[in-house]
């Protein structure tokens, strides 16, 4: 195959997402993202965030995965955002523990 036929992508993290790009990738409005960041459910919620600051914030690949998971759990189970975030926390922890478990199994 000719090299021209190969599509090159950009790695998210090296080119992080803007608020609008993250919202669009999750099929939600920017306000949906802002509310969850302000509530500490998404991105680094430990920081003091303002809407003005959020418009210049950049979001990582992990934020994209988490935001899509939050949206899916909220939608599929008609869940409150806090409950969806709790589910996402638990899923992330289970994924990490499963990784550790795989590593400890005999080869």
């Amino acid at each position, binding site marked *: 195959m000719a090299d021209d036929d190969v599509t090159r992508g*950009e*790695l998210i993290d090296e080119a992080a997402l803007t608020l609008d790009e993250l919202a669009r990738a999750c099929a939600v409005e920017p306000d949906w993202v802002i509310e969850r960041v302000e509530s500490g459910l998404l991105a680094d919620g430990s920081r003091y965030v303002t809407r003005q600051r959020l418009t210049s914030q950049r979001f990582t690949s992990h934020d994209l995965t988490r935001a899509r998971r939050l949206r899916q759990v909220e939608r599929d189970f008609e869940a409150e955002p806090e409950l969806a975030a709790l589910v996402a926390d638990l899923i992330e922890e289970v994924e990490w523990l499963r990784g550790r478990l795989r590593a400890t199994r005999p080869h």
Partner: protein
Amino acid sequence: MEFKDYYQTLGVDKTATVEEIKKAYRKLARKYHPDVSKEADAEARMQAINEAKEVLSDPEKRAAYDQLGEDYRAGQDFRPPPDWDAGFEFTGRGFEGAEADEFSDFFANLFGQGGRRERHGRGDYQRRGEDRHAKVLIDLADAYQGATRTITLQVPQVDAQGRVVTREHSLSVKIPKGVKEGQHVRLTGQGSPGLGGGPPGDLFLEIHFRPDPAFRVEGRDVFASVPVTPWEAALGASIETPTPVGPVRLKVPAGSQSGRRLRLKGRGIPGKEPGDLYVELTVVLPPADTDKARELYATMARELDFDPRRRRGG
């Protein structure tokens, strides 16, 4: 196009109340949610369940679907009659955005906004295409070296009759070197086509590594376990150890114990700050299954002043 029996999908009667439909939906969502389900087709099942709930929990859509579906059974070949939806008004709530993109041809033909807008001649309407998402499995070695993968996607399109049809779109994609587990690669303009001349959306590829029993990955750091003999651990040795891109020589320091972790700096996943490769030594004892082996163990027992329990204070 096949007719879809949404009642069958949710396992409810045609007389089910909205509450019964929601209850059935929640039960199935719990079972097939891709984050928790172990079923191979969980993602597809979840989409089908969402689609069925979307129609049956909305009184307008359900009424239209009930009238249309009287003469059809699941799987039967189906074409919506012209103006089938005359007399019904759809508010469109709940499926604007990517959700409708994930639904079937059947749904898109009946309720999808793309086909309806085309049919109703809203030529001035312009909208950017939806972003799409796909998961791609690569080997850990591909993260070290980069890889090219062919990805096949189902792309919804509006045909000459204004109906939504899907076509396969194959794309050869360069996965960049240095990608991490769960990281996304964005392919600009490779998402759904725009409407009315609007720009296409983007395609996001979520990268996952094929499970490899020899390696564990955390971020850019890679962990491996390598077996060594008691004398290699005790006396030191130069051994061959695997890495995701081929074996390297590793110096085992004298006096190593099982569980000792050696760091190969910069031999993890490449990047601006490359990860490290950690090799954990596992000392494996030779079996005492010959006279010679038993004699050697007996000699050690006699000659060496060694009691591992004493060192623990036990």
